[in-house]
């Protein structure tokens, strides 16, 4: 087939423009901005003054940012382990031949299509409520003492639990499509050989899904680093140390949160760069450790 230069150009240019305008330019500018003293986001570039790594030093030394990073790491690690394990469990159950799997699949995925603001409101105002919340009703049913789910100690975990509940459906779908890609006869042969369900899972399912697990970890890492809305919903009056995450920290110093008078867009850019580096690092580590196995089946 002949190459048609005009057509290729006409067809590809809008996308190239979009890449340059929406991604390349902003990313480059943000990186540059992170090395400058910039008070207001809208100030002219002539008002920027170079200050080297001072922005990075500032955020690294700020206890708010340290707390935010700690929380983010917990979300990434603990939340990630639980979410991915639960999703895998759900995926295995729903592909084990149970009835109504279509319905369950749709029901478990549902939180993903609902406005997260609505979802978070349900959790904060109902499930975790001390006086009339569902969890405390259940706890009391079993004769337990009411628990302060949104108190200082548990709030972070409550938020994480709510977030996990909403996320599981997505990763479950990814895993289901992975499991469905594995030929049935492999399992049938294994069953004939007398392999248990558990050993089938660890010997067949897991190794063949390496690539998909890798993808899901990368996605989760992006989710964890860009965590924002749930913190906003779980600390409604103003940002709290127990739930702060880097993006909320950034939002507060760039746009000004309650009680915050000094603004610093340069430091905000530095936060953005740090988060991006983390994503890149995770991506690189994934590629090094979990090499796509080229198993033929």
């Amino acid at each position, binding site marked *: 087939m002949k190459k048609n230069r005009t057509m290729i150009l006409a067809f590809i240019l809008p996308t190239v423009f979009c890449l340059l305008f929406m991604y390349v330019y902003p990313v480059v500018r943000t990186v540059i901005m992170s090395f400058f003293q910039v008070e207001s986001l809208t100030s002219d570039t002539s008002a920027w003054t170079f200050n080297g790594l001072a922005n990075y030093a500032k955020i690294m030394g700020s206890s708010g940012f340290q707390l935010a990073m700690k929380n983010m790491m917990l979300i990434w690690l603990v939340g990630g382990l639980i979410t991915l394990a639960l999703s895998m469990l759900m995926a295995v159950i*729903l592909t084990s031949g149970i009835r109504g799997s279509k319905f369950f699949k749709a029901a478990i995925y549902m939180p993903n299509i609902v406005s997260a*603001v609505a979802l978070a409101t349900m959790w904060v105002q109902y499930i975790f409520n001390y006086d009339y919340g569902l969890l405390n009703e259940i706890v009391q049913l079993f004769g337990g003492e009411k628990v302060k789910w949104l108190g200082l100690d548990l709030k972070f975990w409550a938020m994480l639990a709510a977030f996990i509940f909403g996320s599981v459906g997505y990763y479950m779908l990814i895993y289901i499509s992975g499991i469905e890609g594995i030929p049935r006869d492999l399992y049938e042969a294994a069953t004939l050989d007398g392999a248990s369900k558990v050993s089938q899972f660890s010997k067949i399912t897991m190794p063949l899904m390496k690539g998909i697990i890798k993808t899901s970890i990368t996605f989760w890492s992006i989710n964890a680093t860009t965590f924002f809305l749930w913190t906003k919903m779980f600390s409604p009056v103003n940002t709290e140390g127990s739930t702060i995450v880097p993006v909320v920290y950034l939002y507060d110093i760039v746009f000004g949160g309650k009680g915050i008078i000094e603004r610093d867009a340069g430091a905000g850019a530095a936060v953005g760069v740090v988060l991006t580096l983390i994503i890149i690092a995770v991506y690189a580590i994934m590629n090094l450790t979990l090499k796509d196995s080229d198993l033929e089946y």
Partner: protein
Amino acid sequence: MANYHEKINWKKEAKLLPGYLIVTTWVVFAAVMLFWILAASLSTSREIFTGTVLEFKSGLHWENYATAWNSQNVSVFFANSLLYSVTASAGVLLISAPAAYVLSRWKFVGSKPIRLGLVIAMSVPAIMIIMPLYSLAVQWGIKGRILLIVLYIMLRVPYTTIYLVDFFSTLSRSYEEAAYLDGCSPMRTFWKIMLPLVQPAVITVTIFNFLSVWNEFFMALIFTSSESMTPVGVGLLQIVNAMKYSGNYGAMFAAVIIVFLPTFLLYIFLSEKIIAGVTGGGVKG
């Protein structure tokens, strides 16, 4: 899986019992939550705070819905979300479909970096790009709905393009050859023949784009500068806050239901398509 009707094999079902238990618990939990929110949306604040929501002692308070709807311009929020979702998912197709087509058909200078760039762009966190975009928008004085429409279109381009490239590459080249012999210009061939051939993929990706834009929150929060351009997500947050300040919890839950319902109904009809959209494009990313 197991869609064919077979006789209930009790032995087999018994083995699956733990699985049934787990998924059922999960779904029942979600159902209880929804049911309670629905009940609370028909109760007074006092009933909510004294834990007597399910008794409906003072009757059903449908007026909570009126309060929630009238307190702020909920209809404007919905119209905005609809506008953003529809124009963005249509606009992105105009940009992405042609690009995906040429990317899948020809190797040319820059085709590889462009593909790579699109994949990378999919994982660039929003916070890396919003700050410069914000200052540009302020500098150029762009505001109002058009700003969010343009941003949403560009935001969805990488995902949509990558998704469609895969589908175009599955099409046989014989279509184009036949069209060429018939004297059809390549551009015409694309719009009249090739694009309709990937219609299922286009529909799936459109539904997916529609929902992502509908539920987008971060950009909406930052770029929304007036009530007249607020979409439902941010609007709901405002309503929830206002209802909290004015202590009207029944209306707050009513607002949650009002926002929840349309996507929920849409989902009942389209769940299969949506689920296909999740597993189709993203996994290969």
